[in-house]
């Protein structure tokens, strides 16, 4: 039996654990329903504090999360935990083992733990994490911990998803220095030296202090270094106190609000990129890549050229706007309109000197113009003379002098073309078709849209 979206959303908002769990799965599976639900729960988000935890493997991240969560539970707060582990690039499967060290929390009704696989996210951290955080947030969790895999690029990404990030290190693993080189330290709002009962803990603290002295931290943002022993819980209370202090000061200084805004900006960009990518990928890449791959394998073509070819093979109508489907087609230049002071004078040049033939003159009352059409190959030149002193052509000449007034492009279905342009937010002068010279149906676009040129769309029976 399938639950409806509204039931699911209601469930999440009422902190129903089953609904929370199922919505996260829909998000992971990229089901369209997930996005409908996310739209609906969004207003209920933004309440929880999101704390990122990262650090090298073996640093005791899960144990710290476990102990911090228990600490918060004693204060009556609810806690959500998202633990991210890598997806195997070979099979697409994953083994998610972070629950092992949080086993007692599993049955606590005030705690929700979810393990997530990175599922091939470009940056390492699961893109679904941000959405899963929203679900837990809307589901009423006061604090949400996001624990990452602890190597490389993912570290930097986590900082974007969190209000505050802890970087966890331990003495004696030998890779502290490497971690610092990888820039991990820079994202830490707090540095935790875990397993501090170990030999070398004080030395590590000292090394970290020295590192911090060298980097450009303003006094207020210099990360505190906190020593903990995850297994016994020593130092956890103090660590939480430091976290809280930091959150309070970030709130007062406006930094928290800034970070959250930045996070949303990143999310919008991520969604935008993801959807854009899907469009490109589904419509363009698949087949082309398969076709070209054989040739690349045989060294008949190199990967760079191959991509160039794929790009070149993109149908021209896709090239302008990626955001929506392009339906209208411009057939040809219908005519070029030239504003003249005197039709008779202009015709003497175009007919007598250039040898073009006027197809006759016509007065368009509506436009306060008298026009003449001179066919040129498949197109025509239209000469326009104002019939009154305040007509649009008179005003144009007054401002700019005689010259090119507009370019008319032929379309098959003017209504459809206008509708499509409206949909894409193009600025129009005529939102509905009207009649122009020669019984054609026409509409003008705003000169801004044509980049300084007045464009006219024309539909006419041949």
């Amino acid at each position, binding site marked *: 039996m399938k639950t409806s979206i509204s039931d699911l959303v209601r469930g999440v908002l009422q902190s129903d654990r089953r609904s929370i769990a199922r919505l996260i799965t829909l998000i*992971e*599976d990229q*089901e369209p329903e997930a996005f409908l639900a996310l739209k609906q729960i969004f207003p209920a988000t933004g309440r929880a504090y999101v704390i990122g935890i990262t650090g090298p493997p073996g640093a005791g991240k899960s144990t710290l999360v476990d102990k911090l969560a228990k600490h918060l539970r004693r204060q009556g707060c609810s806690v959500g935990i998202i633990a991210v582990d890598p997806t195997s690039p070979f099979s*697409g*499967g994953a*083994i998610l*083992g972070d629950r092992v060290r949080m*086993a007692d929390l599993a049955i606590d009704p005030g705690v929700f733990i979810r393990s997530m696989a990175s599922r091939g996210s470009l940056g390492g951290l699961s893109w679904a994490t941000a959405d899963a955080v929203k679900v837990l947030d809307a589901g009423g969790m006061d604090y949400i911990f996001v624990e990452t895999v602890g190597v490389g690029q993912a570290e930097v990404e986590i900082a974007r998803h969190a209000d505050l990030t802890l970087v966890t290190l331990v003495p004696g693993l030998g890779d502290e220095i490497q971690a610092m080189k990888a820039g991990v330290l820079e994202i830490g709002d707090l540095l935790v030296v875990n397993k501090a009962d170990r030999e070398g803990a004080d030395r590590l603290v000292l090394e970290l202090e020295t590192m911090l002295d060298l980097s450009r931290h303003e006094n207020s943002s210099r990360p505190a270094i906190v020593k903990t022993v995850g297994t016994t819980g020593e130092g956890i209370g103090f660590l939480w106190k430091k976290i809280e202090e930091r959150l309070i000061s970030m709130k007062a200084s406006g930094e928290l609000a800034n970070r959250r805004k930045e996070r949303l900006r990143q999310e919008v960009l991520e969604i935008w990129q993801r959807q854009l990518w899907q469009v490109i990928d589904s419509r363009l890449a698949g087949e082309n890549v398969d076709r070209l791959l054989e040739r690349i394998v045989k060294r008949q073509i190199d990967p760079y050229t191959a991509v160039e070819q794929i790009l070149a093979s993109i149908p021209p109508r896709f090239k302008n706007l990626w955001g929506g489907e392009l339906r209208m087609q411009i057939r040809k230049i219908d005519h070029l309109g030239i504003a003249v002071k005197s039709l008779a004078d202009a015709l003497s040049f175009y007919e007598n000197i250039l040898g073009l033939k006027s197809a006759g003159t016509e007065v368009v009352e509506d436009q306060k113009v008298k026009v003449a059409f001179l066919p040129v190959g498949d197109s025509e030149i239209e000469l326009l003379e104002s019939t009154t002193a305040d007509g649009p052509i008179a005003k144009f000449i007054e401002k700019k002098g005689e010259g090119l007034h507009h370019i008319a492009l032929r379309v098959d279905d003017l209504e459809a073309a206008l509708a499509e342009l409206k949909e894409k937010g193009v600025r129009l002068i005529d939102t509905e078709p009207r009649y122009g010279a020669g019984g054609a149906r026409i509409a003008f676009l705003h000169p801004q849209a044509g980049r300084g040129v007045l464009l006219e769309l024309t539909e006419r029976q041949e």
Partner: protein
Amino acid sequence: MSQSKKIRVLVAKPGLDGHDRGAKVIARALRDAGMEVIYTGLRQTPEQIVAAALQENVDVVALSSLSGAHLHLFPRVTALLKEKGLGDVLVIGGGIIPAEDIPVLKAAGVAAIFTPGTATAAIIEFIRANVKRT
């Protein structure tokens, strides 16, 4: 978008025995078959297993026991799953389990029991054929 759907399996060791070779080999084999495996570690109570299954929204719960406590523990898990509305989750079991206990466990809602010597390929096949997707 169905290619992004993954079968999620909770591999759990109820009870106190620490022999997790089988559970870990299965976990790896399932991962290599493209599934997402949530491993809970040792010494899980039925309550913890079911809570994890719910939070992780898994399709399958795979239980392993070598201490002889399966008759006590496996039916507790299936009963609790039903109680939480997770009756459609596929439950399978493995370990040192005498043949005479298998009908008892099946009656309690364990879909299949895999004893030592079972090929992991057979388990993967069984999961794929029997997983109930909603």
